[in-house]
């Protein structure tokens, strides 16, 4: 009986020690941050069309939007989306029927970002992309959408902290959209709000 009581007492003491050690610190600290970033800038479509690319425009302005979870480590995890025009082709069917084709893409990427040194980051991601192909013949337009399920992105960025919350900088990025093997790269100005 004595042994049993002693044993129960020891267990309760150990549990209470463990419980005290889990008590909240009196000083509040942020171990996690989040950031929301928007970017815009030049994009260039790498023209690997094998057919119908005589009059192709490859340079456009794109926009991107990113959300990152930034724990106190080198790696961050986030989502990125955007809107990019890949190309515009202008041609003729026969001699005088004007034909135009535009391809735009909205990617949704799961990103992993790593801080290499202060303010410099490398990121890589993969995910989905909705590809929209719009054509018009004799001013009659129609669009077709297709999903690309295998896409990836690499990016390098520099973000300078102007304040505790605000960062701004630039980003170089490369995309591949797998279903049609479309390649695009670009340089964006980026502004991030960290909270």
């Amino acid at each position: 009986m004595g042994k049993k009581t002693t044993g129960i007492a020891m267990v309760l003491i150990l549990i209470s020690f463990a419980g005290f050690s889990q008590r909240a610190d009196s000083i509040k600290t942020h171990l996690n941050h989040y950031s929301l970033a928007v970017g815009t800038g030049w994009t260039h479509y790498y023209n690997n069309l094998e057919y119908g690319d005589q009059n192709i425009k490859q340079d456009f302005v794109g926009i991107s939007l990113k959300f990152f979870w930034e724990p106190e480590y080198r790696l961050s995890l986030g989502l990125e989306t955007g809107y990019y025009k890949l190309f515009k082709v202008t041609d003729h069917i026969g001699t005088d029927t004007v034909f135009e084709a535009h391809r735009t893409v909205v990617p949704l990427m799961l990103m992993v970002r790593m801080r290499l040194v202060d303010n410099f980051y490398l990121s890589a991601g993969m995910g989905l992309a909705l590809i929209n192909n719009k054509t018009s013949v004799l001013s009659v337009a129609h669009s077709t959408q297709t999903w690309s399920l295998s896409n990836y992105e690499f990016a390098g960025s520099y973000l300078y902290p102007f304040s505790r919350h605000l960062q701004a900088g630039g980003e170089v990025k490369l995309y591949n959209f797998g279903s049609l093997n479309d390649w695009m790269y670009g340089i964006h100005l980026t502004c991030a709000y960290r909270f």
Partner: protein
Amino acid sequence: MKILFYILTAIVLLLSGCNKDTVVPVPLEGANSIMKETHPLPPASKLLMEGVYQVTSGSSEFGETVIVKWNRTSLMIANNNGKHFIMQAGHLDSVVFVQGYWRDGYSDATGLCSMYISKAEGGTTLVSGNGTQKIIIRGAYGFGSGLPDNNLVLEYLRPFSSKVKNSNFYILAHRAGGRTSDRLPVSENSIEMINFTEKLGSTGIEVDVRLSSDRVAFLYHDPDINIRLTQKGPLAGAISEYSWAELSAFVRLIHGEKIPTLESALNFVVDSTQLRFVYLDMKADNDAMAVVIPIQKRILQRAHDLGRDLIVVVGIPSTAVLNDLMSYPDYQNIPSLCELTTDDVRSANSLVWSPRWTLGTQNDLVQQMHEEGRLAITWTIDSPSWIENYINEGLFDGLLTNFPYVEAYYHYIRE
């Protein structure tokens, strides 16, 4: 540094995974080929040359026996596991020269082949078109574009049996003669493929029929424009949403061919081939019969006028298409191929019943179809052992396959 190495390795792997390798190169014989100096063999000589041969040297690569069969444009030699030769033959005096290339249909293996039949080993018989000399074809084969330096000797065993000669068996090739994914030198569902497929031993074809947004019937398999079947161009997405003018102007098949209209493809079959059977596989589901049946009627009339023995059937792969057909006036007189039940075959009065091969040989049902004056053709059967089994054990009038040379071997070698 280690992380940078991993990142670079991942990039290299991703980029190298994007290589587009769509064709097994056809070895070229070179400018000094002797074939340019030879004279064509007369039809009687070609018939004498056809038959079953024993491989007395080179059997480690090509097996114990092969069949030798002429087609419209070339000589085909085929064995039982997908290795086949596409050869040209001609004679100089009494020596017959046979040159071309071989290909393994189930892999990328290919190579040149150069052979001859000497005067004393059948050349005299062949060139004169009569005689009793035993034919021995001697020569060598190579690998890739290397010179042929491995011995190959084929000795004539016997002619094709009377059962084979008298049969009306159809060797039907998929997708107008062959799939793009089998890395053939021409694209599937193209006029160029229809022109090529007889070299593989086909005597009939299946083609995939779709409609453009302005209701032009054309040949294409997939529902979307993709870089598996087409050269990369400015169009993408659902192919049936584009007009024929757009498709014609801005889509090229993987080897650069234009997508053919159904009518141009069928006209080519009638005018330029010896194919005896065309199966129109209806991929379109938007009331396509109203477009396709008039084309079928025109082509059949034209073939009849030219004395061509040609069957063109519209496929019925689903009850939706069956209903579409049965809403058409006089549907019971439209030659069709029904993939559904034998009751559906009777409802549509289909000329051909075409069950999936995995349902078995179903000899009792095939026999019923024969008794009703119909044909039975199964699809799509690719394994050499199953092709052998269905040809020897089944009663089908033909098999649809992606490997017509294998089917040709097992058909022509029948005793």
